[in-house]
């Protein structure tokens, strides 16, 4: 029922650097927090956030998430802000008692907080005062309860933590369905009236859309010019080109988009709730299924976050293998993204077929090294799972030196100068640099808007500081640039791969003994990597037990979608699909 005893560390004694400046400015409203960062009083939170952004220069809000400290009786919202010049984060937190559960919204300071605050409301039940559109985002309106609260239990709840005692030594097989009251994965509140069973989730969605009203305030806006009919068009979740089960509700004026609302959660698989029950290692294969095209780099991000808590470093050979796998993954992802962008443009399947062929060859390498084409589960804490043979390296070199450069060059020749593609993509879905930062977009979307921000350079992890490569950047911020930047990045990945494959030393691949159940020192860590789709972050809170107390994923696809409305406004409905394709989302990561 209750969370395990939490070993709480004493707050940091003195604040250094920018935190000290913050403390000086706001006095007692800023208090040092445990492990890292400061706690800012709710009264000055918005003001302090503005100060952090404008005066201290932390313009980029990377992550916003909430933690339920049930024993202490409060929720904590954790913010990680970064400088665009690079360097570490400024961590600040806000607290609210569990009964009140209200915190001022920071959407007015960072519009990129929009979806993340909605997620915290949906899953944790924290209200963000002043949020323009505080609706559920992953679950549906009307769902009973807020699942990530520590006292909320799902229907198939068995035990607080894995391993479950029912599996061994007397593990008589019993299906979860047969254990529960309704023989299904459902639960109903006792005071619910089944006669009222009707789906109201869509009604909630359409409120404020399509009318001449501002959804934020409900105030009627009279059109200045001739009154034209406004249409609400629903696209998805089953749509030939929405990249999975993604849904968009578009308000149209004629054929022009007035407003677009992304609707997600159709693949919400409860990663975080399951992750808090798993042991640390058990989360590794689950991270494969986040961005299921880039499982290797997801593994890397999670391994780095846990290694931060554990304080261990993998041996040299493992570091090289990690970089090789991560960069191959980047090529796989960008090939896939370009192939399917062309699908969205109407060039049905031929470019995608060419891209998939190259991808298959890389997947063969992954399969030989890790055992699976897609769900690699390759990284371990302090190393990698399996070593690769010399033959593997030789084949990888063959790909990197011979096959892939030709394939990318061919793709470039095939598509880049095609006039039809240019006329469909240039000037479409423009995201200006200031908005790209404000909306917390990451990866190719951010860099195509002229912001050369790449975690591999801004805050180097693993051994990326050893390699010679350029951060690809383009300046127009339209669909065409987002296409070009993926080609650029593939060339840079090949550069890194060449260096890594030449320099890889022999030796151990695992630091220390591989353990399946280890105690992780109490603490908090935010590990982030530059995934092909953008900055992937893992926020972990450890209470010293073998299971994470809080396990949060900062998913780049999810946060990049915050800017979708901005990109689509004023364009034609046919461009929506292309713009979405150029962001390159994967639903496993959007909905988690």
């Amino acid at each position: 029922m209750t969370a395990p005893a939490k070993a709480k560390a004493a707050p940091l004694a003195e604040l250094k650097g920018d935190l000290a400046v913050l403390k000086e400015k706001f006095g007692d409203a800023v208090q040092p927090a445990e492990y890292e960062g400061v706690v800012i009083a709710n009264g000055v939170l918005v003001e302090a956030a503005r100060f952090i952004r404008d005066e201290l220069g932390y313009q980029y809000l990377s992550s916003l998430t909430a933690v339920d400290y049930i024993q202490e009786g409060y929720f904590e919202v954790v913010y990680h802000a970064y400088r665009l010049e690079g360097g570490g984060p400024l961590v600040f937190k806000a607290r609210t008692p569990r009964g009140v559960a209200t915190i001022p919204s920071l959407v007015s300071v960072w519009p990129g907080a929009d979806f993340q605050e909605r997620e915290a409301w949906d899953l944790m039940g924290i209200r963000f005062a002043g949020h323009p559109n505080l609706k559920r985002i992953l679950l549906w309106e009307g769902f009973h309860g807020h699942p990530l609260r520590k006292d909320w239990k799902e229907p198939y709840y068995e035990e607080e933590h894995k391993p479950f005692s029912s599996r061994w030594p007397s593990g008589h097989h019993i299906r979860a369905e047969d254990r529960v009251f309704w023989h299904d994965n459902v639960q109903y509140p006792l005071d619910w009236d089944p006669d009222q069973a009707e789906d109201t989730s869509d009604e909630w969605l359409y409120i404020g859309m399509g009318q001449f009203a501002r959804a934020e305030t409900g105030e009627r806006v009279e059109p200045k010019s001739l009154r034209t009919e406004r249409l609400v068009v629903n696209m998805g979740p089953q749509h030939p080109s929405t990249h999975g089960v993604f849904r968009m509700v578009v308000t149209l004026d004629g054929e022009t988009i007035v407003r677009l609302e992304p609707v997600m959660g159709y693949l919400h698989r409860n990663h975080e709730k399951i992750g808090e029950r798993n042991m640390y290692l058990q989360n590794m294969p689950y991270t494969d299924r986040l961005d299921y095209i880039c499982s290797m780099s997801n593994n890397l991000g999670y391994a780095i976050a846990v290694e931060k808590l554990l304080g261990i470093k993998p041996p040299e050979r493992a570091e090289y293998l990690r970089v090789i796998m991560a960069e191959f993954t980047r090529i796989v992802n960008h090939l896939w993204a370009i192939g399917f962008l062309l699908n969205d443009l109407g060039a049905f399947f031929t470019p995608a077929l060419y891209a998939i062929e190259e991808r298959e060859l890389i997947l063969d390498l992954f399969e030989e090294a890790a055992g699976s084409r897609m769900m690699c589960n390759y990284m371990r804490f302090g190393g990698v799972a399996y070593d690769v043979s010399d033959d593997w390296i030789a084949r990888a070199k063959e790909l990197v030196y011979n096959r892939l450069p030709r394939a990318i060059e061919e793709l470039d020749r095939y598509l880049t100068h095609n006039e039809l593609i240019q006329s469909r993509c240039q000037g479409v879905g423009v995201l200006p640099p200031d908005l790209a930062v404000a909306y917390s977009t990451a990866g190719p979307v951010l860099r195509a808007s002229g912001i050369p921000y790449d975690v591999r350079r801004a805050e180097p992890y693993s051994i990326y500081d050893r390699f010679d490569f350029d951060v690809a950047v383009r300046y127009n911020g339209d669909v065409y640039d987002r296409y070009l930047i993926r080609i650029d990045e593939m060339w840079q990945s090949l550069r890194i791969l060449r260096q890594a494959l030449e320099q890889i030393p022999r030796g151990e691949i695992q630091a220390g003994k591989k353990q399946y159940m280890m105690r992780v020192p109490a603490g908090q860590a935010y590990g982030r990597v530059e995934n092909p789709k953008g900055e992937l972050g893992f926020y972990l809170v450890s209470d010293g037990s073998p299971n994470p107390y809080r396990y949060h994923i900062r998913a780049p696809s999810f946060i990049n979608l915050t800017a979708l409305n901005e990109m689509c406004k004023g364009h034609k409905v046919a461009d929506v699909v292309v713009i979405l394709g150029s962001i390159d989302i994967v639903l496993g990561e959007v909905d988690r």
Partner: protein
Amino acid sequence: MDELHDLNTMPVPSELRNNIFITTIDRFVSYIYNWGRKRSVWPMMFGLACCAIEMICAAASRFDIARFGSELMRPSPRQADLMIVSGTVTKKMVPQIVRLYNQMSEPKYVISMGACATGGGPFKEGYNVVSGIDKFIPVDVYVPGCPPRPEALLHGLLKLYEKIERQSVRSVPWYQRGESEAIPVPILGPDLIDPRRLPEIRARLGELQAQQGSSPESSL
């Protein structure tokens, strides 16, 4: 009048029902009919999660589902014969899946691809996951694996061929009299509600409310 033509209710002596002549014709017709049908099973262009990527790979050049006549992925359920449920079925998505299934014209088949669609998979314990799509729509072939290799999907497709081969024109449901019934679309309430179970839920909730009316907080 209709009753007289219904083979099942026609007053025919039981020994004559399995008339050899009828059976032979039936078998011959079924053979031709099934041969044509199984070589052009058009799947619906419908992907849910990770398995959908392997489904696309099965349709791409290396595994080439076109060799089996199934390369025409139809975005419209009206034109599709096969629904490949490829990935985790969530509670939020299941109303749409049932609706799509209802919209498919008969004959229609369902392949449940991957552990998640088959029985919930690794995400079974999650609060937003349906433990198997067969709780709502009938499934013909289950393909386990997480995710199944493209070859495994093709193997499932070949299994489906075997099933189609065994069908007889006389007994297939879409040549029976009357319309086939649509599956009631699940409702999203405080949790997922299967309309077929509503009376049961109503009865049991009433029972429970009467039992422990003092603590409306608790839920089941």
